[in-house]
């Protein structure tokens, strides 16, 4: 029987809005609806609240408020950073990224290739880790930007952004990081982390959807992606998503207060879930290294079963998770991240990501630990592969 409210373990996809965030936003939907650009008191007070939100985000980043630019989402931040880096260095035609980026970066890189730019896609090893020597060797005189995600959204593997940024700086290359998954989970300090651009998204950190922020380091040349009015100091035109920005500011404040909790209590729940499932379900493995991983994320691969089937059966018990399998994504191939890691097909198709938040409880974990093992057993009974001796039949494709 499914619980009254879902057991939500898909927080890397999106998070619930924190009640305190919602409370802070509400007046700006109703009474305080002024345009922050208006030259009257009514709009001015909204403008001041946006400034306060900017300060809160800057505090979370440990940067100057002027270095924070509000936008719509992580995708916009990634697109803006990459396009700005190229537009400001027209003689440079090469970018470096990785094979495991979010589509917000990967698809921009592929698009740029069609426009005549060169892109290098760094590979990862079986545990999802980058080879920094490969990065060093990939840098060319015409490299305009290195764009590497801070942590992978599917496996939770954290990349060594500090070292990557230092390598980039040594070679005079701009560096961008998609930090959408790390805000509130991994502490970072932009005073010491020498990236030029860093993108975050509100809805991954208990703020609403439709708001994000891009850090642009002072002194880095910037070319706007959106042209129009003077909002965001002329760097991102368009009337501000006031309520979203206020929500993001509050969410950042709460996230920073909770970062220790995320790394202790949430991590403990994740570890309990992972350990119990690994113990209860044979032929199961963790995708990605366990050494440097987001505290809330586990990507588990169950051999010989398919991810969508697992998710739908879990859904019947009110459990929301995510899959790296092909069938859930609308694509026909398993996740590009798992393929890049060389995860065998026998496991890749049966990969499930559980991503927790501070709103998860022991009871949530207990429910998954109770319901998932019989689901896997049931699906393996249906599967032809568990019946084969030894390894599954080789691919005939």
């Amino acid at each position, binding site marked *: 029987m499914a619980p009254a409210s879902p057991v939500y373990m898909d927080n890397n996809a999106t998070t619930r809005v924190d009640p305190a965030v919602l409370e802070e936003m509400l007046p700006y939907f109703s009474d305080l609806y002024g345009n922050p650009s208006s030259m009257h008191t009514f709009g001015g007070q909204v403008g001041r609240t946006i400034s306060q939100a900017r300060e809160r985000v800057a505090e979370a980043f440990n940067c100057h408020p002027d270095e924070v630019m509000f936008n719509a989402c992580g995708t916009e931040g990634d697109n803006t950073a990459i396009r700005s880096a190229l537009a400001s260095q027209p003689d440079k035609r090469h970018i470096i990224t990785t094979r495991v980026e979010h589509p917000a970066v990967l698809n921009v890189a592929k*698009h740029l290739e*069609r*426009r005549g730019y060169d892109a290098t896609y760094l590979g990862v090893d079986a545990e999802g880790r980058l080879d920094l020597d490969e990065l060093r060797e990939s840098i060319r005189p015409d490299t305009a930007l290195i764009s590497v995600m801070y942590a992978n959204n599917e496996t939770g593997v954290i990349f060594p952004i500090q070292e990557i940024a230092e390598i980039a700086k040594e070679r005079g290359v701009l560096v961008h990081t998609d930090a959408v998954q790390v805000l509130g989970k991994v502490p970072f300090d932009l005073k010491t982390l020498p990236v030029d651009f860093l993108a975050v998204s509100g809805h991954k950190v208990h703020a609403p959807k439709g708001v994000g922020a891009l850090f642009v380091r002072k002194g880095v040349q910037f070319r706007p992606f959106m042209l129009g009015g003077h909002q965001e100091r002329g760097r991102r035109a368009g009337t501000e998503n006031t309520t979203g920005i206020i929500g993001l500011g509050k969410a950042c404040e709460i996230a920073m207060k909770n970062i220790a909790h995320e790394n202790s209590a949430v991590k403990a729940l994740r570890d309990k879930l992972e350990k119990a499932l690994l113990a209860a379900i044979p032929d199961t493995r963790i995708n990605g290294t366990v050494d440097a991983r987001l505290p809330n994320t586990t990507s588990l691969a169950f051999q*010989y*079963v*398919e991810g*969508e*089937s697992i998710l*739908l*059966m879990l859904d*019947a018990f009110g459990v929301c998770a995510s899959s790296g*399998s*092909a*069938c*859930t994504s*609308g*694509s*026909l*191939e*398993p996740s590009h991240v798992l393929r890049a890691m060389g995860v065998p*097909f*026998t496991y890749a*198709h049966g990969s499930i990501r559980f991503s927790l938040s501070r709103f998860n409880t022991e009871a949530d974990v207990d429910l998954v630990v109770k319901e998932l093992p019989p689901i896997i057993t049931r699906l393996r*009974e*249906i*599967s*032809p*592969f568990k*019946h084969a001796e030894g390894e*599954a*039949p*080789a*691919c*005939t*494709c």
Partner: protein
Amino acid sequence: MWEYTDKVREHFINPRNVGEIKDASCVGEVGSIACGDALKLFLKVDENDRIVDAKFQTFGCASAIASSSALTEMIKGKTVDEALDVSNKDIAEFLGGLPKEKMHCSVMGREALEAAVKNLRGEEAVPHAEGEIVCECFGVTDEQVRRAIKENNLNTVEEITDFTKAGGGCGKCLDKLADLLAEAKGQKKVLTPLTVKPAGLTNLQRMKLVNKVIEEEISPSLQQDGGNIELVDVDGKRVLVQLRGACSSCKSSQLTLKQFVEKRLRETVEPDIVVEEVR
């Protein structure tokens, strides 16, 4: 999340006829774990060629499991020949429909049935269906594609992918699929619709692509009606053409230019192409 019918959900949660038949008369296996779905079908056939039992093992998504369950329910009690009349459309209809992107699951059911019957009749089991492989990612042959087009009246490359998975991987076979589609429809090659339109074409790229679409698709089509078209010039996004033959005196020539020529060039080259007639 996919929108599944209640019947798909029911057959997924409570699949009928799961398992294997130890003394099966025949077994049909299709798919592979690399491809993301696979089906092993066991049939028990009596002396009157009647299927008295059918069981399956499936690796795959809800649609694959439900399609397998439906197939076994549909063929039990039928003679082998009657069972062979069950098409993938019948399987999908039995389930109240499948998302179009999941139609290949119903095709897999049909193929497993055919493989089992081949096995029953002592015909050689081959690793692939008959024909030449066109999609290397999913091991789909040209014969499978032709058949899917014919039996399901497919009209686009995207539909071929939905029904066979061909073209759903690296995409290198999309041109071949377009050729097979055109051949099946008795047409000259229809250019693959571009899922991602090339942005910011150079003048030379634009000129080449416009010329290709006109030569390979638009001109042959107009010739079928006794007309023709000739490319005069490409000036930025302006495409200058002259109509020939029956088209030059046709009262509907402007409609032809806008509704056919310009529309097709916008679909295949760039969305803001403007076609103008030069007299």
